[in-house]
């Protein structure tokens, strides 16, 4: 029943994303419309994939650092991506993929640095050290970014921030293809880690006693979740809130076991982002809202409702 409801929500969100838009396309022309084929459909698919990736990444990072406030951007990835994007513009790197690739590289650099700091004092990724390292690296990257922005020409860089704040305007069949080729690998790694993460939830010592290889598990989850988030940033900028709220909402419905939680989070995140993007495109047409605002506006009431239901039962 829960699964049916979620699947229905996902299908409806995706369907609305294809049917609705600022341009009026009659239902009978849906299959032949150039606007639907080359703009709306890839955008809806990308929204779904990115939303799902962020929610899955958030769910696994919350399990890894055992902190409910964790989200995909907690560990310095958005700061690194921002620095990469701003550097690409400041250095006048040209080409349609320069900005996404630079953001991706920046996110990976931040990830590597946080990872290295997380290994301080032995070979283990201590969750507390990891969070601190993430916050510190993110703050440092933001400071460098701000320094570059304030020292160079303003308009171009301000626009880089616009891009970075998230949005799916860049969606095309190319970006969908990139996402379809890239996403499955980290997604598979995370899904395979679902069972061991259940054990890890008991604490690192008990997990070790139960025969789980805790250190490799943590590294695998951290790298896979970060790679997934970095790719999401590259195709759509930093879209907040999906990775924080969707895992919690799904936990309220499916409990703490990661086997059902991960697919549910993926579907829920995809549905939320596809729906939010439809709202972003249509409510203030011809203008468009930043999708991150809509994910919060749509996500918070849903989350509050679930939270009430959860604490009541």
């Amino acid at each position: 029943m829960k699964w049916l409801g979620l699947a229905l929500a996902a299908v409806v969100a995706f369907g609305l994303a294809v049917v609705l838009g600022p341009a009026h396309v009659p239902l009978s022309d849906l299959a032949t419309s150039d606007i639907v084929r080359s703009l709306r459909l890839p955008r809806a698919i990308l929204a779904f994939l990115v939303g799902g990736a962020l929610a899955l990444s958030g769910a696994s990072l919350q399990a890894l650092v055992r902190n409910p406030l964790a989200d995909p951007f907690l560990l310095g990835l958005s700061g690194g991506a921002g620095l990469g994007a701003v550097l690409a513009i400041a250095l006048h790197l040209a080409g349609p993929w320069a900005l996404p690739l630079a953001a991706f590289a920046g996110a990976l650099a931040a990830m590597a640095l946080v990872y290295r700091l997380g290994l301080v004092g032995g070979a283990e990724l201590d969750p507390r050290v990891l969070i601190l390292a993430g916050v510190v690296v993110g703050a440092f990257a933001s400071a460098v970014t701000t320094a570059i922005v304030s020292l160079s020409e303003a308009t171009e860089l301000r626009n880089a921030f616009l891009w970075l704040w998230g949005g799916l305007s860049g969606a095309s069949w190319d970006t969908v293809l990139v996402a379809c080729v890239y996403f499955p690998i980290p997604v598979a790694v995370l899904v395979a880690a679902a069972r061991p993460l259940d054990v890890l939830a008991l604490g690192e010592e008990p997990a070790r006693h139960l025969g789980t290889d805790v250190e490799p598990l943590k590294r695998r989850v951290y790298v896979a979740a970060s790679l997934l988030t970095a790719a999401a940033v590259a195709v759509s900028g930093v879209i907040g809130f999906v990775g924080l709220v969707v895992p919690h909402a799904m936990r309220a419905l499916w409990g703490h076991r990661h086997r059902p939680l991960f697919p549910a989070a993926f579907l829920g995140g995809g549905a939320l982002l596809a729906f939010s993007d439809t709202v972003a495109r249509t409510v203030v047409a011809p203008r468009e809202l930043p999708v991150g605002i809509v994910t919060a506006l749509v996500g918070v009431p849903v989350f509050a409702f679930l939270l009430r239901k959860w604490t009541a039962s």
Partner: protein
Amino acid sequence: MALRTEAQTLAHLRSVGGGPFFAMRLWAHRTHLAGLLTLAAVAACARGERTAAQRGVAITDDAGRRVTLAAPARRIVSLSPAITELLFALGAGDRVVGRTTWCDYPPAAEAVPNVGDGLNPNVEAVAARHPDLVVLYPSQVNETAARQLERLGIAAVVVRQDRLQDVARAARLLGFLTGREAAGDSIAGVISRGMAAPAAPLGTRLAVVVWDNPPMVIGGGSYLDELATLAGAENVFRDVRSASATVALETIATRDPDVIVLLRDTASSEPPRIARRPEWQAIRAVRERRFVQLTGSLFGRPGPRAAAAVAEVRRLLREVGR
């Protein structure tokens, strides 16, 4: 010294100013914005002598601040490229003793000492030029800086120069403050007459794209929209009232402009970035490669060169065809 009231100034402007068109425009300002935007009183010496040195000048600036000068400004720091350009056009270029990094027109302006990027003014660097007048554009940090300068005993005026009507007004205002009223009136007159007489319609519908991802276009409330309209073209996003707005690509595709206009920092004959982006190919003007690329300060900076900008936009639009 007797200061004239604002009403008297209005009457004065009606009788000697740029004709009924300007007066109406000014009147509209007054009714809309409760007098905040008006030029205020010109002081005349009680004895009626009108030599520059003896005449005091008082105005209300665009931030609603009352500013009084004992005499026309002789050392001016300009914290906006548009204002620097206007001061030179008024013939007060030799009195500009400080400018921003971006003040590159006219070329003579580059010989003036640079006091910073003008985004968040360095009050010390400005004060070090010993100005008797500092001109800033309206912004939160600039209004704070204006108050700080005032405390240092330096007169500071906040002048808006976002659209053509602002240029006409700014020309008169800075004309008063520099004692070059005739030059100010003449610039304002040229601009007002230009605004009243747009070029014959070209039949070209255009969209001005200022950024590709997220797609941002110029709306009806902007200088570029005015340039396009005066050049005889139609901005398909005129109904968007703000200066610029983020829109969905499918909205651009549906509105189907004939030409995409882009702004570029440096001249280049290369096609713009959007020409190579797959998602932009849903737009006919992109598929047909109908681009007009505007380069340099002429188009981004409302000022006395507006007529030249309009003519150049019209020429480029004609070149790319319908």
